[in-house]
């Protein structure tokens, strides 16, 4: 039920997921100790795909205090600098996923109500979620973590950097403008949702209703703003008996949207209703920042460009529900040609591990250039999230969020070797491989320890298994219904 709203997962993705899980095994890699966090690092001799400033052959990047200090073919290595040899490798900016639901503790939807702008992803970031690390291993260094799509107006987003090993606060992308999730179409109108017997259906049930809910919410937000303005005026006039209005966590973010201080990232499929949302925004005097999924974006690309809304779409993924039938793989290219800033997103913890391949598909479908394709997972999502001053390309002064690939990243054979955020190595394939043995060893030791302690839990204390007992007497006999797997306690407190 949760995933239905959060993400659309066709079978092939599930197969991907299973294969990938099997590859990475069920281990929990754990954070790799940060490597010379704020020191000086030089990445040498690589092919540097800057995205915004062309390609540099045999180039080097000097990183100082987490920022890119120099880029070029004549970078001198300062004394004491850490050198990463990238001979024969490719360096790109860290990939950015404009639509993610990873690292959320609990449900990704507050699905009980149609307007849930009081809930915030930042409140429930789970820094131990292994997806953060697995995506890092695929070159993704930043993600737009969104509320699900159950509601016309969903919750507040959190843009994170994949600083695996840091606490929740340490993952947040400093300076990223705040955003919010909206959703149109089948999910918020719940046409694919069966209520419990005796349960009232939640309003809205139609696309008209979705627009009504959004419009009404902004009308309420305007009224709310007025009540505060009136109160502040009374206080400013020296009135002592003015009672402050209630601070409403639901309406505050909507006021921020009206004031242009919060980005709207709206899930949508059909061209007509996405266009409606743009018109509604214009009616209330704000701009929608991105249309998410936007599978029919090619039908309204001109209008999108005019409004100034970005499009964040899938490469080639459709027909998983009615409103996804009119999609074409040329969507990203067509929107781009009309001047829309386009990104390719994942909406999936699996797909976010190979955004480079997803981007590459736009070369096949629509004839994008290498740079145009790379932009869709680097600078373009950065622009859509308002973080392009910090990340998204390899330029002096930007955050040193970099990925080193063994092959050209738009090749199907490319595998990320090293992922760097703020100049710190957060993923290193070689070290990861070494660490696996360590973790296996730790795991075995813990299992052995438990096994050794098990007899004490079963029998009376102080009784060792008898000398004549079979060697396996220490283990419990097979249980009825071995296939039965008990629900693992999550260790959460309710």
């Amino acid at each position, binding site marked *: 039920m949760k995933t239905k709203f959060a993400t659309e997962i066709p079978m092939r993705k599930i197969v991907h997921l299973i294969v990938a899980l099997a590859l990475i095994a*069920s281990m929990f890699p754990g954070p790799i100790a940060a490597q010379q966090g704020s020191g000086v690092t030089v990445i040498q001799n690589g092919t540097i795909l800057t995205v915004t400033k062309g390609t540099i052959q045999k180039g080097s990047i000097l990183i100082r205090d987490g920022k890119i200090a120099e880029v070029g073919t004549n970078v001198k290595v300062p004394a004491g600098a850490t050198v990463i040899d990238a001979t024969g490798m490719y360096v790109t900016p860290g990939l950015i996923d404009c639509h993610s639901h990873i690292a959320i*503790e*609990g*449900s*990704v*939807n*507050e*699905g*009980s*109500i149609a307007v849930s702008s*009081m*809930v*915030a*992803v930042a*409140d429930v970031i789970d820094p*131990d979620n292994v997806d953060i690390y697995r995506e890092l291993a695929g070159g993704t260094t930043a993600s737009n973590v969104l*509320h699900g799509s159950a509601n016309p107006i969903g919750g507040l987003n959190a843009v994170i950097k994949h600083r695996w090993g840091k*606490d*929740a*606060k340490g993952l947040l992308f400093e300076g990223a403008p705040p955003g919010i999730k909206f959703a149109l179409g089948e999910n918020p109108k719940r046409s694919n949702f069966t*209520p*419990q017997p*005796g*349960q*009232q259906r*939640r309003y809205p049930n139609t696309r008209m209703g979705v627009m009504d809910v959004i419009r009404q919410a902004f009308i309420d937000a305007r009224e709310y703003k007025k009540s505060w303005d009136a109160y502040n005026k009374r206080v400013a006039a020296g009135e002592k*008996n003015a*009672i*402050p209005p*209630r*601070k409403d*966590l*639901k309406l505050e973010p909507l006021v921020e949207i009206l004031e242009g201080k919060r980005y709207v990232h709206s899930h949508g499929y059909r061209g007509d209703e996405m266009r409606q949302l743009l018109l509604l925004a214009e009616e209330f005097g704000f701009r929608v920042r991105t249309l998410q999924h936007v599978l029919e974006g090619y039908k309204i690309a001109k209008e999108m460009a005019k409004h100034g809304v970005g499009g964040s779409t899938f490469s080639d993924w459709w027909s998983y529900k009615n409103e996804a039938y009119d999609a074409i793989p040329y969507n990203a290219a067509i929107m781009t040609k009309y001047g829309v800033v386009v990104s390719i997103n994942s909406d999936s913890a699996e797909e976010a591990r190979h955004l480079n391949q997803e981007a590459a598909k736009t070369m096949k479908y629509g004839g994008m250039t290498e740079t145009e394709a790379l932009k869709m997972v680097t600078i373009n999502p950065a622009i859509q999230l308002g973080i392009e001053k910090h990340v998204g390309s390899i330029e002096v002064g930007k955050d040193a969020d970099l990925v080193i690939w063994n092959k050209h990243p738009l090749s199907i054979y490319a595998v990320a070797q090293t992922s760097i955020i703020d100049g710190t190595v957060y993923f290193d394939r070689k070290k990861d491989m070494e660490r696996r043995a360590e973790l296996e060893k730790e*795991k075995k030791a*813990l299992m052995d320890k*438990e096994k050794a302690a098990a007899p004490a*839990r*079963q*029998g*009376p*204390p102080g009784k060792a298994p*008898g000398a004549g*007992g079979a060697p396996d*007497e220490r*283990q*419990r006999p097979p*249980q*009825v*219904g*071995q*296939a*039965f*797997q*008990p*629900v*693992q306690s999550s*260790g*959460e*407190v*309710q």
Partner: protein
Amino acid sequence: MLPRSARSSFSGVIAAVLIAVLAVGTVSVPDARAQAKGAAPPYFAIKGARIVTVSGAVIENGTVVVANGLITAVGANATIPPEAWVIDGKGLTVYPGLIDAMSDVGLPAAPAGPAGAPGGGGPAVALQQAAQQAAARPSQGPEDRPGTTPWRNAADELQPTERRVETWRNAGFTTVLAAPKTGIFPGQGAVINLAGERPGDMVVKTPATLHITLQQPGGFFGFPGSLFGVIAYIKQVFLDAAQARAADEIYTANPKGTERPDYDRTTRVLNAALRANRPVLFPATTAAQILRALELNEQLKTNMVIYHAQRAYESGVAAAIAAKKIPVLVSVKWPEKEANADPEAEELLSTLRFRDKAPSTPAALDRAGVRFAFYSDGIANPKDIIKNTKKAIDAGLKADAALRALTLGAAEILGVADRTGSIETGKIANLVVTTGDIFSDRTQVKYVFVDGRKFDVKEPPPPPLPAGGLGAVRMTGRWSFTVIAPDGPQPASADLTQAADGTLSGSVSTQYGNSTITKGSVTGNRFTFTFLLDLGQGPSDIIFSGTIEGNTVKGSVSALGQDFEFTGTKPGSGQSEAEEVRQ
């Protein structure tokens, strides 16, 4: 506050005299109240015992004098009043009464239901009621105040005859924080002593605490139906409380010409609790949850106490808690592998680490200088609280720190250290007298004093044999069940404990989730137990009933108005037979 026994001594004087006359010779100077209750006399002296005061040094050979419910003298040379009943303390150790820092001991099964319903299962029943309410009319937002009853006070719902009042006391617990559990703001807790004829006799302090949980009473259909929804709700309620406070002040100062603020019971109670700086209990387990709670409290600005906290051993967490000077109630219900887990099933390293490291949490907190106490968290057998505390000692906690956490440390966090928690003159006579070190599994509890009332504890000699064939314990153990459902056999398992009176308790694992038995009993060769489970249509009662024959059972399961047959075995039983042979 006056001690229980002293408080009503005037009103009971006449009765006391009568009884004294009737009971000539038994006691020199009887206390009215204690005598009226038919209990022991009001003056005691435990002489020549090892006294672990907790607040001060251990007295190797000393005397504790108890009079009218209070400790009146402690020391190597304390004077024993002539009227005191002298207990020879040779070979005995006296500790302050233990404190279970959060529990529902003393609270009846159905808090809002008909009075007099005995037995455990209160929270489960209440949860069911909450679920029914939620189904009736889903909450549409914070304004509906879902799962919010902060005005409920445990002190108003106490039931002195609740079964666990006695079992907890017999294990050495004289005091618990009784706390309502159901809802996001379930209510306020009361510190109670575990003895009394009437609920009012038991209360030590009320309201003592304000409780918050992260339950989602609405499910997917009512607000809040997610963790971030609950957190948003909690923030909103505190904002509303601040607004109500401001509005009330303005209105009270000048009602004429001022808009009259609405009455809201929730914010009214919350503001009273905040004004009194009452501890606000907030749950958190993992490092992320604990840090989140600390940060949330920067907004809420409460006298927060974090509870559960079993992953506070993780790097940097204890230090972060210490930096905010926030106390912690650690759940001693340490994580365990599921009773009937598939031994071949792969487990995550993080799960294994958690099971291994959880008992080291108290040591980590202690090293960081965090004030902490322990609570039972649903443990069925109170002896296990002490046993599990021992595991924390084995994982590095100093024994005296562990004892402090079970006594004075808990009293400090709960705001009752001025009256209980240590053996000091003037404090409430809550004592536990044992045959040795409280953390040794060979130690037996001899006497427990609650408010100066003496209770003899008849403990069976150390660990009896879990012989499979003995009638009294034949349901105790791990059971595997196979339920014949329409779509094929389904396994389930239960970890059962059969009490001497035939009461059955424990936990159940099924493929739909795990649950705790709310009601269960064994009579003759018949047994029945009930637990609450969500089979996809909201929580409902599942009832197992059947007959026992040796190590097998059979019977029927009643669920959602349908009955299915089941069979069951006790797989561990083969082993205990082998043990018997060896004996």
